[in-house]
């Protein structure tokens, strides 16, 4: 069973199962190493951040999108192009805050969590927390500081999986010495 490859340049197809199992093995090892769920969540976020920082360059190179003019456009690009390109899913965008600086991504099927069940003793674990780190890292490289967190997780018994993304502030490029 192999995932349809969306990359025209890469003829090697990686099996989706291998991807899911690799991620699962990594989370299992983190749990063994760190023992505390909060610590594992933090590590997943950190790893995701490092992935996001590089992934955004690959995304920009392949998708040719220009700068987004506002946060709504950013949300559209993330859901319809970003998630589609890397995970093959299209989350729905909902629950916009009144100020337009916060929204939710409803993730229906998550390839990271196929076959996964979380036992009782790891009730605090956000299994797919790496996604929050990826979003944070990627958006930081395009000058947006955001906060990403799970508000609902189907692995923890909720109906759906929902990631909330909040815009904190715009990051300005460092100015060369002498400029105002």
């Amino acid at each position, binding site marked *: 069973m192999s995932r349809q490859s969306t990359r025209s340049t890469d003829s090697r197809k990686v099996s989706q199962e291998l991807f899911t199992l690799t991620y699962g093995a990594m989370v299992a090892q983190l749990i063994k190493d760190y023992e505390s769920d909060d610590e594992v969540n933090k590590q997943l976020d950190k790893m995701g951040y490092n992935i996001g*920082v*590089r992934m*955004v*360059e*690959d995304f*920009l*190179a*392949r998708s*040719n*999108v*220009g*700068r987004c003019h506002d946060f709504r456009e950013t949300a559209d690009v993330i859901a319809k192009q970003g998630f589609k390109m890397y995970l093959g899913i299209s989350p729905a965008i909902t629950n916009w805050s009144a100020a337009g600086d916060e929204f939710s991504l409803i993730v229906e099927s998550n390839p990271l969590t196929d076959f996964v069940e979380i036992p009782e003793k790891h009730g605090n674990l956000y299994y797919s927390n790496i996604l929050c780190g990826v979003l944070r890292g990627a958006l930081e*490289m*395009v*000058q947006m500081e955001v906060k990403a967190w799970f508000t609902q997780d189907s692995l923890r018994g909720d109906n759906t999986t929902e990631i909330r993304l909040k815009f904190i502030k715009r990051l300005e*490029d*460092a*100015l*060369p*010495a*002498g*400029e105002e």
Partner: protein
Amino acid sequence: MTIFNIHIFDRNGTCLYYHEWNRRKQAGMSREEEFKLMYGMIFSIKSFIARMSPTDYKDGFTNFKTNKYKLHFYETPSGLKFILTTDLSVNNTRDVLQQIYSQIFVEFVVKNPLCNLGEPISSELFKIKLDNFVRGLPYFQIRQS
């Protein structure tokens, strides 16, 4: 038809890569100063063009021309700046710079976990690939002088 040199800067002004193929006159200052001058100038030109533009613009600053050379500029949304100087016969290098970004920089620097972003590029593979790519361009030709 020639290509003189290339600079690659990141969003903090660090010069990640510089290479020259055909440069007959030096700037008269150290490389470090030259990079700072280049980055500062590009930054100023970009902001000047944005402010003085009489209409809405799509790409902003793309190139400038003197009577001897032409400087081409391409910036990614992530703040990476690619600057190529060529002679006057070269027209539009936006595609070329975009290709350098997506097929060489992303493939051999971003995807290499041993390459630290934000530091000058030390990857030999990147240097070789870029060199081959530029030499393979239809308008590259070392002039016999």
